[in-house]
């Protein structure tokens, strides 16, 4: 396991080094070219506060507006999560299964919308926001990012006797089986 971890770390280091080298070379090339329009983008989200219980799901939309003077390159929108109460462990993959969306180039004055689904898996205070960055090859080391306002989520622990409506099933099935087999034995005794 440790050996495999070391190998992964080595490969990741080499890959990061290569990406950094490529990005620096690309950045140098961009210095003389047209500036990337991401700095002219504004991102808004359809919710600002959400109160939920663990296990709930909700959706919201983000809208990217290009208020610059030229069309954007292809973009990547990413949904990020951060615990703001300092104690909640947040694994973004658990909170949303689809956190990255490709966005086609946006013309001047136009907007693009994305829909996101969030599942509140743990109790606590968590903020969520959408980050927009240019997709490669427009992505360079110092590309400006566009960020939406944060959605503040307050998640309470869900304590229910009948979570997901499964209680009747988990009780009734064994009882029905006991009654069925017990009934068979009783009938056999009298027949």
């Amino acid at each position, binding site marked *: 396991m440790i050996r495999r971890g070391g190998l992964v770390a080595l490969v990741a280091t080499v890959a990061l080094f290569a990406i950094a080298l490529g990005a620096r070379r690309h950045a140098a090339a961009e210095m003389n070219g047209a500036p990337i329009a991401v700095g002219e983008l504004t991102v808004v989200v359809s919710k600002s506060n959400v109160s939920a219980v663990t296990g709930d799901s909700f959706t919201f939309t983000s809208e990217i507006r290009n208020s610059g003077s030229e069309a954007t390159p292809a973009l990547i929108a990413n949904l990020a999560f951060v615990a703001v109460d300092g104690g909640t462990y947040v694994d973004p993959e658990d909170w949303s299964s689809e956190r990255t969306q490709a966005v086609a180039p946006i013309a001047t004055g136009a907007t693009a919308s994305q829909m996101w689904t969030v599942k509140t898996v743990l109790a606590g205070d968590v903020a969520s926001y959408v980050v927009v960055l240019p997709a490669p090859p427009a992505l360079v080391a110092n590309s400006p990012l566009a960020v939406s306002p944060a959605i503040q989520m307050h998640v309470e622990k869900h304590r229910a006797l009948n979570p997901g409506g499964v209680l009747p099933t988990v*009780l009734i099935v064994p009882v029905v089986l006991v009654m069925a*087999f017990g009934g068979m034995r009783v009938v056999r005794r009298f027949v």
Partner: protein
Amino acid sequence: MTTLTPDVRREAASQLTAGAGGSWLVIAGQELRDIWLSARGPAIVIGTSLLLSLLTYLAASNEELNIIDQRDTVNLLAQITMALAVGVSLLFTADCVSGERERETLESLLVTPVPRGQVALGKYLAAVSMWPVLLIVAIPYIWVLREGDGVFADAMLGALVVGTLLVIGFVSLGLLVSIFSGSNRLSLAVAFFIFVLLLAPTQLPLGGWFGDLITQTNPMTAGSTFLHRAIVKEHGWGEDLDLLIAPAVWAIAMTGVAFIAAGRLRLQGSFGR
């Protein structure tokens, strides 16, 4: 598995003499009664339903398990049902000949004018009967946990196909081991050991060419991977048909070998006397 009563032996003998050729039906009927009208079958079914109830409730209520995707939970339930059915059916047939041998009732069974292959077939069918019953018990749990289109159908159809192939293969394995075992203890131990040996890789992270080889050739890992891809990954059935080759070959080969061996069933076992 059980001792055939003199009535059953007489019934089988009279059917054979009359040319009915259905002695296996008589034996299967007696074995089925022995499983389902005694405490054994019902106890296993009720125990399975209690286990599935516990897992279902945990999956729905536990915070950590809540993180698991609904399709993963359905897949877990389907695989547990399948593994239980395979294990229980295997142990039933692992006992069926060596048990008679140990209880010294095999001799009287062998002198009955019933072909040995038909004796084996009757016991085999009775052991296989556990699988459809457990699958039916799992239906309400999978139904209540399903979320999204097609999860229930994927799970039930996948479990039916993969489970049937695996149960047929492992029931045949149990029969084969039982035919050659001199003692019931040896038969149960060998059969259960092979079951665990083939089941264990399903819990390992298999990767690389060796992992792929095991996944493709071990009927348990192939079946489990097929089910996982059909239920969790939402793969179409045509995409992973190659994963059904190992369970199908396992079922056909083991059944063939077991019934060839059953035709040469002897009073004494070859091992562990």
